[in-house]
């Protein structure tokens, strides 16, 4: 089979000593940064992007994969031990995990989440390896109008369909699209929204935006509400290992979580939040110990954690095969590819199979490393959590600005970072989602150039968007996804008045 040959070839790339070292550094850094409270995988990748700047593309992508998976593992440790999920996808883990830690069962909670992440990550990566070539074959047939339609679907699902408020989600998306316009128009060379500032001609850097929104914004937000509550770190007491009973109660939720996570992650449906909560409510319904839910049931950690990791691998399917990021973390990965001038998509599979398959193979290796790194070394990561909050956030801000200072030490770029920080703070305060801004900035310019290319080919006839069956179907899907929340909300209101 083709896939096996390609995967074996990728393995050969991934086990080269230098690449193994990159993977190890990646998972180590990813876990260390991901474990810090308030830092999710997206920010972990964004913060560590400048570190990989000087490496060769192959090695640095392998390092990224390690950082990505490491950040996921680290995030769940934080969620369990201090109940501050760094991202919405580990919210479900925090529900039961933190209760388990409070009841002195933090060790088994960490173990089931680490082993569950390993199981889910491995199965989902196999899924990725087999689904990707198939999708690539399909994607080769895509014309520019189909790509544009696909991006419309991604825009809508990421911002409107699954959030609390479609209006606030779309507002975030359009802020991102606006930022994507800044700079020189690639087709005509005219400057848009640059206001005569030379630094703006290159456009807005994705890392500056992401680090500003996530790191600086988060620090400002936490500082502004410090007087509300003190976070408490739960010490890991008792045995770290899972009992036989724990294993028996964990393995089915792991598999079920994977079944939720991978397909939903692979669809352009926006992130890991939905599968984790689906898995949580599913485990709650199926459990033999319903009385334990809300007090620390191990199923409620095992399922969502597996779903979280499976969907992380799932989001790599549209990212690698179509160049379509559907979560903030995937958007950061895309930024990582772009810093080497690589564009993920069918062409990359054809032109640089060593790179793509090396990356996929190294995901397996990163997963194994993380299992080893997380179970015995969990004490080390827990010590990182004990850093006092003032130093922690001061350190995060230093690290965040350092990336920008290293890449572009200009007053304009640093002011933009601070400005995005304020934007991120206000968006958190007024409950606007952050991820659509990043996705809008990255996908906006690509969608525009695909649309303009499609219209140039059709000599300006907009009907070309509807004449291609793929594009027409996708646009219809986007429209349904856009209208669905409004219709459902209308129904909900109708029901509410009936009560």
């Amino acid at each position, binding site marked *: 089979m083709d896939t096996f040959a390609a995967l074996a070839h990728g393995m050969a790339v991934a086990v080269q000593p230098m690449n193994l070292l990159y993977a190890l550094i990646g998972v180590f850094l990813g876990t260390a940064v991901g474990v810090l409270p308030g830092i999710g995988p997206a920010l972990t990748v964004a913060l560590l992007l400048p570190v990989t700047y000087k490496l060769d593309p192959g090695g640095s992508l392998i390092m990224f994969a390690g950082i990505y998976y490491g950040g996921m593992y680290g995030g769940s440790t934080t969620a369990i031990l201090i109940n501050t999920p760094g991202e919405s996808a580990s919210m479900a883990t925090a529900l039961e995990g933190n209760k388990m830690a409070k009841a002195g069962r933090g060790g088994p909670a960490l173990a089931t989440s680490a082993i569950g992440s390993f199981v889910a990550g491995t199965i989902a990566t196999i899924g990725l390896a087999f689904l990707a070539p198939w999708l690539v074959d399909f994607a080769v047939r895509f014309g520019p109008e189909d790509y544009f339609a696909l991006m419309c679907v991604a825009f809508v699902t990421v911002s409107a369909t699954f959030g609390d408020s479609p209006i606030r989600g779309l507002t975030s998306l359009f802020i991102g699209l*606006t930022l994507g316009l800044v700079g020189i128009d690639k087709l005509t060379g005219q400057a*848009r929204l640059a206001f005569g500032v030379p630094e703006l001609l290159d456009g807005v850097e994705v890392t500056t935006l992401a680090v500003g929104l996530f790191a600086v914004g988060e620090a400002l937000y936490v500082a502004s509400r410090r007087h*509300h509550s003190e976070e408490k770190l739960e010490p890991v007491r008792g045995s770290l290992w899972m009992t036989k009973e724990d294993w028996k109660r964990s393995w089915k939720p792991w598999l079920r979580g994977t079944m939720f996570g991978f397909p939903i992650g692979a669809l352009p449906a926006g992130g890991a939040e939905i599968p984790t909560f689906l898995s949580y409510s599913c485990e709650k319904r199926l459990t033999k110990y319903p009385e334990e839910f809300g007090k620390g049931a191990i199923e409620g950690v095992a399922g969502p954690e597996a779903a979280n990791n499976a969907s992380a691998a799932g989001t790599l399917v549209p990212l690698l095969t179509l160049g379509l990021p559907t979560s903030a973390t995937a958007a950061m990965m895309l930024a990582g590819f772009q810093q080497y001038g690589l564009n993920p998509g069918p062409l990359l599979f054809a032109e640089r199979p060593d790179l793509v398959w090396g990356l996929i193979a190294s995901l397996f290796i990163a997963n194994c490393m993380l299992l080893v790194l997380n179970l015995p070394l969990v004490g080390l990561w827990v010590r990182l959590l004990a850093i006092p909050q003032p130093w922690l*956030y001061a350190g995060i801000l*230093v690290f965040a*600005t350092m990336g920008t200072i*290293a890449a572009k030490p200009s007053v304009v770029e640093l002011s933009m970072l601070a400005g995005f920080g304020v934007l991120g703070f206000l968006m958190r305060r007024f409950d606007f989602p952050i991820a659509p801004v990043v996705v809008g900035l990255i996908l906006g310019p690509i969608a525009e150039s695909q649309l303009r290319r499609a219209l140039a080919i059709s000599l300006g006839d907009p009907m070309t968007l509807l004449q291609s069956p793929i594009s027409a179907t996708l646009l219809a899907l986007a429209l349904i996804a856009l209208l669905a929340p409004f219709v459902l909300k209308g129904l909900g209101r109708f029901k509410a008045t009936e009560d």
Partner: protein
Amino acid sequence: MTQDHASGDPAQPPRRVDRAGIVIAALLAGLAAVLVVDARGLSSTTMYGMGPEAMPVVIACGLALLAIGNFVDALRGNLPARESADPVPVVLILIGLALLIAIIGFGGGFILATSALFVTTSAAFGRRAILVDSIIALVMSILIYLAFDRLLTLSLPTGPLERLL
């Protein structure tokens, strides 16, 4: 915009006009206007299809619609409840960022700039031991500088302190 009236008060009726929401709607409308004005300065040179000015106008229309949507939400008081925010630490961190930018801008170098940010942020989070924090910050930023400069060979801005190393 941080000095919000404390709207987390449960005694208030839930449906009242949210002033911050109206400001947000106004800002979105303003952004849409900026996009249109900027797009009018572009010349369309393409024979077929869209010129560079088409997309900004489309996005401006979207922003205008969203401004209306946010305005309606604000009038109805539909925004999610907010807890009170303490503006002092936010301002402190922003001062720290301003110091960092100023020090880099005037050639003070990486170590001084990041140390200033570290100390102000730490103070914003309630630390009062400025001297101890300054020493920690200096040691940390010197280590980071050395790691980046020697190991990763990335150049960070240099100032008086960096030249001594």
